């Protein structure tokens, strides 16, 4: 079933050559935040100085996923994996590794869990249980070079679709694969396409939801930055399948790099005739426009997203009619998440069977998570569906830092739930997570350790929902505010047992009476924490105590005299002048003056400030 694209020379085979001499520098947002762009520049200059620029490629790649250790550099042949590489280390890498053929020991990854130094990329524990099928190009290819994508069999699927398949066959193949929407709801993608295909009204639109709004999640951003062509190819195939000629990518404006890479990629595809009129000589025409979001979480909801594309306030519409019948500009529209589209070329190219062989029966394929919070190895991971939470947190994530205890894992973002330790062995898939009281969501996974107050955590999510509620439905508009107020009362020591009843009542009303998922699911973080950590709520209410020592109204700070060297940092930082003491002598906090802001604890280098 191998087909040839009409431009074989465009592909750059070096990306597949293990012997190719290359220094790959991660240019994802995480690593560029740690100066990887300067690093890339310095590496080029260093090689120039040694007249090696023609021989050794310095490649800008997408995200390796191990963002916490960035900037990441991988030197090939050999896939030597360097972490936290500063621009000033470029000289060492060139001189010691490239010229001297000697790996730079101090830049190699040191695994805190095994206390070992790891040299090769794929030997790192972080990658051990991962299965990268969606992220298989990230970190390998230069996302701004279509030649790399083509060499990785890119656009083969599109070619195959246009030359050998009918739209119905494409839909059947996607349906067969069991692909479920990666935006969170997990609706079967093929079935959704089928609905849009069936509506006899033109024009139709293909919309990519890249408004990744969940705080603590950056999966879609990494895919767009690391492998933009996969998303584009998926969208073109979707357009062919449903009979659309125009596509929109609705991307958060907070992702300037992703938008830039998309623009470059779109330009390249147009140049090669992969977008535009009569794609690859077929009678199918399709083009894509980028729309930048403007900062509204609710626009991740598909109808609000379409309202926003239309230049309106991002307020959801009632469904039905569903977008497949009446969506953007009241025309049939198909909205999928970035990852869903990016899976499509792989499914078409390798077959539905291949895809469904990964993961579980109900949730085939892999899941991509942004693993963050209080965990040793944070970053972007891709794991097969069915893996347990424990494997993710301890094997991939390397456990909880600072010897602290695990408390909860939060999945699904502000509309998801928190699961405690007893759920760590459930398999990760759409249905199991939902059964446990959380959701898969788009892929945010935040780990909370024992120092996290679950009431405060729930309050954080509720505050987020209050800020992001569009204001259309009273249950969400007012209910979320009332929910927040109840949580505020509890964290301020003014809560009553009736507040817990009120929370349940508000949650039920919001869920029943809201138009969109934002209002319906907003109570989930509160309800799941209340269910699993009721003791902690009750401690706040009945004992006026915050077990995690976070809620300012319920704690006091003290300085442990034995640990305090009298460095005066805390006293200097205290805004309420509550800390006194001579230089070199242990300091004391005056509880009357202390506003319990916690700044002293945060700035103390000797852990001498403790919470009582």
């Amino acid at each position, binding site marked *: 079933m191998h087909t040839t694209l009409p431009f074989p020379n465009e592909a750059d085979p070096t990306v597949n050559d293990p012997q190719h001499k290359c220094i790959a520098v991660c240019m994802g947002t*995480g690593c560029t935040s*740690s100066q990887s762009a300067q690093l890339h520049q310095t590496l080029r200059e260093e090689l120039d100085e040694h007249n090696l620029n023609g021989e050794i490629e310095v490649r800008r790649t997408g995200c390796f996923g191990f963002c916490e250790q960035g900037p990441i550099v991988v030197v090939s042949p050999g896939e030597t994996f360097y972490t936290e590489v500063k621009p000033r280390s470029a000289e060492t890498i060139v001189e010691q590794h490239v010229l001297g053929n000697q790996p730079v020991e101090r830049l190699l990854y040191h695994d805190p869990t095994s206390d070992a130094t790891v040299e090769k990329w794929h030997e790192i524990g972080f990658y051990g249980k991962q299965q990268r099928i969606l992220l298989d190009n990230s970190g390998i290819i230069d996302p701004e070079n279509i030649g790399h994508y083509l060499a990785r069999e890119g656009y083969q699927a599109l070619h195959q679709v246009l030359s050998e398949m009918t739209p119905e066959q494409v839909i059947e193949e996607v349906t067969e694969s069991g692909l479920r929407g990666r935006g969170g709801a997990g609706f079967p993608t093929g079935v959704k396409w089928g609905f849009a295909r069936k509506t006899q009204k033109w024009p139709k639109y293909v919309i990519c939801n890249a408004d990744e709004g969940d705080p603590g999640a950056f999966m879609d951003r990494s895919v767009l930055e690391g492998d933009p062509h996969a998303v584009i190819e998926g969208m073109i195939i979707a357009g062919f399948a449903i009979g659309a000629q125009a596509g929109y990518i609705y991307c958060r404006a907070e992702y300037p790099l992703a938008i830039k890479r998309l623009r470059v990629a779109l330009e390249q595809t147009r140049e090669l005739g992969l977008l535009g009129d009569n794609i690859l000589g077929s009678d199918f025409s399709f083009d894509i426009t980028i729309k930048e979001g*403007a900062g509204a979480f609710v626009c991740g909801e598909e109808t609000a997203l379409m309202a926003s594309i239309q230049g309106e306030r991002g307020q959801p519409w009632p469904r039905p009619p569903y977008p497949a019948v009446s969506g953007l500009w009241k025309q049939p529209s198909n909205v999928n998440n970035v990852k869903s589209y990016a899976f499509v070329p792989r499914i078409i190219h390798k077959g539905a069977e291949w895809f469904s062989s990964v993961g579980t029966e109900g949730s085939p394929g892999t899941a991509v998570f942004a693993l963050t919070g209080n965990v040793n190895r944070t970053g972007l991971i891709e794991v097969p569906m069915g893996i347990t939470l424990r494997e993710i947190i301890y094997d991939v994530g390397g456990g909880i830092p600072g010897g602290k205890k695990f408390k909860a894992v939060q999945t699904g973002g502000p509309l998801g739930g928190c699961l405690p330790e007893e759920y760590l062995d459930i398999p990760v898939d759409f249905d199991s997570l939902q059964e446990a009281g959380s959701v898969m969501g788009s892929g945010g996974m935040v780990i909370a350790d024992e120092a996290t107050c679950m009431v405060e955590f729930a309050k954080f999510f509720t505050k*987020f929902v209050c800020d*992001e509620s569009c204001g259309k439905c009273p249950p969400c508009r007012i209910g979320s505010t009332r929910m927040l107020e109840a949580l505020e009362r509890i964290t301020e020591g003014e809560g009553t047992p009736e507040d817990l009843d009120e929370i349940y009542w508000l949650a039920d009303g919001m869920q029943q009476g809201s138009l969109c998922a934002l209002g319906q699911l907003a109570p989930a973080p509160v309800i799941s924490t209340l269910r699993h950590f009721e003791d902690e709520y009750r401690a706040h209410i009945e004992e006026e105590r915050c077990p995690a020592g976070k809620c300012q109204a319920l704690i006091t700070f003290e300085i442990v005299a034995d640990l305090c060297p009298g460095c005066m940092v805390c006293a200097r930082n205290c805004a309420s002048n509550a800390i006194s003491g001579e230089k070199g002598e242990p300091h004391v906090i005056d509880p009357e003056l202390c506003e319990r802001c916690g*700044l002293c604890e945060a700035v103390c280098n000797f852990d001498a400030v403790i919470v009582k």
Partner: protein
Amino acid sequence: MGEIDNGTVDLSSMDEVFEQYSEEQGALIPILQKAQNTYGWLPGDVLELIAERLGVSPGQVYGVATFYAQFYLEEQGRHILKLCDGTACHVRGTPILVTAMEDGMNIRPGETSEDGELTMEIVYCLGSCALAPVAVLDEQVMGRMRPQMIVRRVEKHIASAKKATEA
């Protein structure tokens, strides 16, 4: 009734923007984005001009401009500090960064300092969760921020920018 401050602005800068989007359906949001790029915020005159040129009501433009967090209807400070309070940053200490800024620079979220130098705002997730907590000062991303660092970095940044303009 909150009157919009209509500072005097050169409206002709918008001509090019209208030109660019003349064919595009639903171009209100990108036009607002371009306008904000041009002026740094969205003065009332600009909103009214956009309404007139797009043939929509000023209310619709105002409704959209106030709906999205990205748009400013007040003049912003010369420097903008965004503190990320996404979940990952939150659990890793953004609230204490806010406290440090409040104490150290006497500025609260959503406010602009009295001298007009700095605007501080809280944003939800910049997607750099692995570097939590993250702050963005103008275009510069600052990962793994600590309370004692943030005030210093901001002060330094403002001071050096001032020096550059004076020179």
